[in-house]
């Protein structure tokens, strides 16, 4: 089996700190994401997992430390470079964050046309059909988000992320609020996406079934710090009570 650690680093986070007022959310986090790796960030609610990935796309600005996405350093990044970072990086939000006032097709078109205005109508339609096929919802094109179930919304959210062909995908709790069957389907979709598009992903989760299915490597966050990094077996066999509280 190929050792992912030998792959090129696509995201390099060093000593990242982020506070909200007096509350330290991230307190010196250092972690790297390699090419074609699924890195799961595991931790309790409020441990700073979502804040970490929001810092990666500059939705939140970090206080200290550095985040490097590809060749771009995010500290004091200019607007043009930030556009390039966001072109490379897809983000699947916890609630999918589909635009309520737009149909599924318009949601997908919006994402595509905002990043690249050079596509013709035919190309856009082809891409939309292709990406809806990939997430297993070829007939959802004309539906409004309110007509979709939670699992379908996540799939369309993923389609919207995939349509711009990102090199990195950030998943914010992709299986939260879903039933075990749909949750399983989403986990399989994450793996299928990685196999097909050869992208790297950071997956925020506290759903152990999802973690077991998708993780190449796990980083556990506790009190704003990285508590442990390793592969699944290292976590499962660890006797640390905090780690075991997740895995048993």
């Amino acid at each position, binding site marked *: 089996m190929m050792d992912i650690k030998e792959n090129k680093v696509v995201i390099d986070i060093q000593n990242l700190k982020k506070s909200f007022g007096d509350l330290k959310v991230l307190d010196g986090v250092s972690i790297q994401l390699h090419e074609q790796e699924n890195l799961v960030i595991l931790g309790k609610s409020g441990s700073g997992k979502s804040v970490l990935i*929001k810092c990666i*796309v500059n*939705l939140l600005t970090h206080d200290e430390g550095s985040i490097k996405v590809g060749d771009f350093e995010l500290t004091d990044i200019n607007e043009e470079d930030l*556009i390039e970072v*966001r*072109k490379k*990086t*897809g*983000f699947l*939000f*916890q*609630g999918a*964050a*589909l*635009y*309520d006032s737009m149909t599924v097709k318009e949601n997908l078109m*919006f*994402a595509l046309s*905002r*990043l690249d205005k050079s596509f013709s109508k035919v190309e856009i339609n082809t891409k939309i059909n292709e990406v809806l096929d990939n997430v297993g919802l070829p007939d959802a094109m004309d539906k409004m988000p309110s007509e979709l179930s939670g699992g379908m919304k996540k799939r369309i959210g993923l389609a*919207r992320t995939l349509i*711009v062909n990102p090199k990195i995908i950030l998943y914010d709790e992709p299986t939260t609020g879903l039933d075990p069957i749909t949750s399983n389907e989403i986990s399989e979709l994450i793996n299928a996406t990685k196999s097909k598009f050869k992208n790297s992903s950071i997956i925020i989760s506290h759903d152990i079934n999802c973690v077991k299915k998708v993780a190449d490597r796990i980083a556990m966050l506790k009190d704003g710090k990285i508590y442990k990094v390793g592969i699944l077996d290292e976590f499962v066999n660890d006797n640390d009570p905090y780690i075991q509280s997740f895995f048993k």
Partner: protein
Amino acid sequence: MINTPNKATQAHKKNLKFQSFISFIKEKCIQFFIDIAHVIAYLKLVFKNVFTKKFEFEEFLKQCYQIGNKSVGLISITGIIVGLVLTIQSRPALVEFGALAMLPGMVAISIIREMGPVITALICAGKIGSSMGAELGSMRVSEQIDAMEVSNTNPINFLIVPRVLAATIMIPILTLYADAIGIFGSWLGVNLKDNLSLELFMNQAFSSVEFIDIIPAVIKSFFFGAVIGLVGCYKGYNAGRGTESVGIAANSAVVTASLLLIIVDLIAVQITDLL
């Protein structure tokens, strides 16, 4: 006199209460200035984005349609009632002074100068301001605004600027429409007791109206529109993260916009008075 321990404790408690009151006031003052700074930064951002090459014209037209379409029914009903009520209420006083012939002109001036712009703006503050606050607030809560940013779309440019401009353009148009409907309502009111043709009523009404009555009213309604758009969008865009924030944003948009409209009206009236 020597203080007993009990009195000393009471004095200490009073001192503590006073200190906590002072720190409460201090905190509120700091928060007030932070809020002012936020509003200034927001206004700066909006105005900067108005004059950008990336103007979202399609979204602007959509918002103009939404604002006009959403409010026209309500404004028609309110306009006609305002015209009717003004006429019915004013008639007895004018009859008493033998000045019934002045009724159309008086009502027309009242509607054009004050009632039309203010009633339209207040209705739109309720209807459009709350809808902007709720829509943007819900987009904030459900991370749609974040999703937009990640898709390389400036939310100020896409969401706020078209809404503010659409409100600024549409409120004066709705005001002129409300004026027309209100004057028509007044004609209906006159015809409840008298028999006056529409043509004669209009002649009497507009013989009293001058350009100076219409222009300031239209100008102030542009400001009313800007206030409704800016406040509605500000409250929605800066809504908190929980679902209750959506309600708070919508409610706060209406209350703040209504209050500001009255203040802007007062300022506008003072300026018009000087002219």
